[in-house]
C-alpha cells in the first residue's frame, strides 16, 4: 500500500517535470479529421457527468429518482433502450448514495436483461451491486455498473445484436443527460450549463440510428428519438464561450424528458 502511494507521488512529480519539457506540434487538419469517435471511449459515462456537476454544488440527486419503474416491453429494441436508461438510474442511485434504490434498479436491470436472454450475464453482477450498495462502496458500484454495461454489450455483440448495443448506449446517455438537464434546470448557472457541452455525441447517435435496419428505425419510439436528436445536439454543441441560456436549458430538459417518457411508455 505504502509502496503504491509512493509510486503515485513519484509519478505525479515526474508528470509535472515532463509537462515543462514537452512541446508537441499541432495536429494537421487531416489528423484532426481522422481522429476516431469510439463508442466506449468518446462518450462520457453517467458517473463522469454526475461527478462534474458534483464539483460546483451539492445536487439533490435523489430528487431525480423515477417514481414508477418503466412499463415492460416485448420489443427487443425497446427493451435495450429501457435497459440503458435503467443503467443510468443505477449510477444516479450510487451518486445519491441510496442503498435501496440501487437494489431496486439492479432488480429492474436483471428483469430487462432476462427479457433479452442475457440473465446469466448479469446474475453475478447483480449480487455484487447489492453487496457494494450494502457496504456503501459507491465508487465500486459505479465501476460495477460500467462493467455491467460493457459485459451486456459484449454479449449482445456476440449474438449479432449490435443494434441493441447502440440502443442500450443511447438509452443510457439520454437518461444521464436528462438527469443532468433536470439538475441544471432547477439550479441554473451559466457555468453549470457549460459543463454539459458534448459536441458530436448526439450526431454520433443520429448516424448510428440512421444505420439501423429499417424494421428497427421505423419503430415509432426510435423514429421519434431520431427526429428529436438534432435539436438536442444543437443545444449540447453551443460554443464553450456561450453556454445555453436558462430558457434553452428548460427547452432541452423538456425535450429529454419527453424522450425518456417515450421509452418508458407502453408499446402501441
Amino acid at each position, binding site marked *: 500500500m505504502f509502496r*503504491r502511494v509512493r509510486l*503515485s507521488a513519484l*509519478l*505525479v512529480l*515526474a*508528470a*509535472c517535470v*515532463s*509537462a515543462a519539457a*514537452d*512541446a*508537441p*506540434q*499541432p*495536429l*494537421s*487538419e487531416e*489528423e*484532426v479529421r*481522422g*481522429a*476516431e*469517435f*469510439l*463508442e*466506449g*471511449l*468518446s*462518450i*462520457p*459515462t453517467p458517473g*463522469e*457527468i454526475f*461527478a*462534474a*456537476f458534483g*464539483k*460546483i454544488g451539492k445536487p439533490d440527486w435523489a430528487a431525480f429518482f423515477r417514481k414508477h419503474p418503466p412499463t415492460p416491453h416485448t420489443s427487443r429494441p425497446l427493451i435495450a433502450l429501457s435497459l440503458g436508461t435503467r443503467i443510468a438510474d443505477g449510477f444516479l442511485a450510487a451518486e445519491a448514495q441510496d442503498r435501496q434504490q440501487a437494489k431496486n434498479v439492479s432488480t429492474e436491470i436483471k428483469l430487462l436483461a432476462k427479457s433479452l436472454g442475457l440473465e446469466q450475464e448479469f446474475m*453475478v453482477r447483480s449480487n*455484487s451491486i447489492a453487496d457494494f450498495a450494502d457496504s456503501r462502496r459507491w465508487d*465500486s458500484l459505479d*465501476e*460495477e455498473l*460500467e*462493467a455491467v*454495461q*460493457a*459485459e451486456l*454489450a*459484449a*454479449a449482445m*455483440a*456476440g449474438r449479432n445484436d449490435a443494434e441493441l448495443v447502440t440502443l442500450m448506449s443511447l438509452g443510457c446517455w439520454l437518461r444521464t443527460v436528462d438527469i443532468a438537464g433536470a439538475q441544471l434546470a432547477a439550479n441554473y448557472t451559466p457555468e453549470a450549463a*457549460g*459543463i*454539459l457541452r*458534448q*459536441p*458530436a455525441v448526439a450526431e454520433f447517435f443520429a448516424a448510428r440510428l440512421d444505420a439501423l435496419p429499417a424494421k428497427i428505425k421505423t419503430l415509432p419510439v426510435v423514429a421519434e428519438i431520431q427526429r428529436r436528436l438534432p435539436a438536442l445536439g444543437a443545444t449540447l454543441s453551443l460554443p*464553450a464561450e456561450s453556454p445555453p441560456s436558462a430558457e434553452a436549458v428548460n427547452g432541452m430538459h423538456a425535450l429529454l424528458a419527453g424522450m425518456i417518457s417515450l421509452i418508458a411508455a407502453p408499446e402501441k
Partner: protein
Amino acid sequence: MIRTSLIASLLALAGTSFAGPASGDAAVTCRRAALDLAGAWANDGFRLRENSWAGTLPAGKPALARVNLLAGNRYWFTAATNAASTTLAVQIYTGRGEPVAAGTHRDGPVAAAGFAPAASGTYIVAISESRGTPVPFCLVHSYK
C-alpha cells in the same frame, strides 16, 4: 470481479477502431500494463473507466481518438504497449488539434497524460511511438 470481462470487452471494442486491431493476447498484455500504471492514479481518487481502446499504432503516425471531457473533472489517459524496447507517448489536443498543457509521464513502453479541462467539449488523445513502428497498444482512462 470487476475486470473479469476483460477479453470479451477488448475484443468487442478492438473491432471498432481504425487503428489496426491487436491480437487478443497482445491486447490483454497491453491492457494489464496500462492498468498497472493507472493504479497510481486510482490511489489519488481517480475512477478507472471500464472500456479501453486497444489496437495497433499505424506506422509512423499517432493513433488518434476523440473524447468528450467535462470541465471540473480531472483526467488521466494511460497507454501501454507490449513492445518493451519502444518509447510510447500520450498527448492531448483540443478538438482543433492544438496541444493542451497536460502533465505527461513517459517510461518506455508505458506513458500517460493528465489534464483538467477548463471547458467541456471534444478533445483528441494521441498515442505515438518513438520509432514509428506499428506496435500494439492499449489506452485506459481515469477521471475524478
